[in-house]
């Protein structure tokens, strides 16, 4: 069983990317996927939306899996592994989570169900990138550096100049980190992202 962590700041498009990716993974790779959603609030809206689209979802609400809910994440993943037997589990942490911490929690899994591979991606909102950088450059830099690659999402909302500036800034913050430009809501470059996550 493999695991994928799809991280990114609040409102970056994680849920949309999860919905698109699950469909693509199933259609092109024929793999069975389960999703763990961690919402910060007491009510999990993202999980509810995913269930409406027919996904098997486990919700972890009212906390963050990279810190207070770490043990709950392990228990949840074990239950999914034992009861659903998916090929892949996608974890969508809260928008404030550090992907490195989530991956570290997952690697604490017991030997019999330890994931064969854990991939992580950080989603960046192209539309709000300058505003977010102004408010949270250091934690966002940390997010970028602790993922396997970066997705610049919502590219349909910015022009070429703005997109180029975002790429330059990401290269400055996380030198050499692979970047994919996409629009999850318009299904643009989803297959490229999935190929990086699954292979």
């Amino acid at each position: 069983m493999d695991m994928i962590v799809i991280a990114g700041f609040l409102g970056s498009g994680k849920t949309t990317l999860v919905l698109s990716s699950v469909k693509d993974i199933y259609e092109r790779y024929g793999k069975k996927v389960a999703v763990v959603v961690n919402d910060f609030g007491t009510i999990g809206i993202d999980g509810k939306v995913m269930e409406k689209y027919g996904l098997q979802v486990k919700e972890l609400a009212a906390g963050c899996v990279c810190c207070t809910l770490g043990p709950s994440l392990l228990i949840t993943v074990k239950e999914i592994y034992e009861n659903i037997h998916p090929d892949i589990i996608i974890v969508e942490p809260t928008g404030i989570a550090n992907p490195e911490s989530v991956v570290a929690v997952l690697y604490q899994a017991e030997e019999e169900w330890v994931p064969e591979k854990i991939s992580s991606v950080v989603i960046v909102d192209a539309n709000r990138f300058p505003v977010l950088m102004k408010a949270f450059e250091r934690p966002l830099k940390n997010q970028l550096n602790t993922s396997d690659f970066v997705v610049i999402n919502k590219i349909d909302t910015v022009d070429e100049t703005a997109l180029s500036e975002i790429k330059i800034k990401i290269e400055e913050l996380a030198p050499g980190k692979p970047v994919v430009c996409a629009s999850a809501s318009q299904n643009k470059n989803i297959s490229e992202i999935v190929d990086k996550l699954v292979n």
Partner: protein
Amino acid sequence: MLTDDFTAYAAKVNISLKEPVSAASIQKKLTTFLALIASECSDNGAYLIGHIKCVVESEKGFYASSITAPTDTPSVRGEMTDGSESLDVIVNVLLYGLDKVTVKQITKSAVPVALSFVDAEIKIWDLEDNENQPIHFG
């Protein structure tokens, strides 16, 4: 990014309608609701909206909507057909720079303004309080 000025708030709204309403009117009111909360929060001092999300469910389907800036138009996904007679709405506000009391007040005030239907009965539950008594409108 869990700073001292980060605020999370959630509420549930039930709307009992006297007459069935169209899906288009529900979608319009939903986006107006989120846009109103976003602009009010921004005007009152929120410097960054993490997200304001909402799910509305009825016997005719569902809509999920989200907004991340007061200048944006809320995105909407989901499907609903005409004829809903009761709506369950969950709204979740995550933002920076505004205290929870004000966020709560803005959200609850936006409900009767943006989600009103003729002769509808509206109840609001604060989902983050231990005392889970609804507030009635209509």
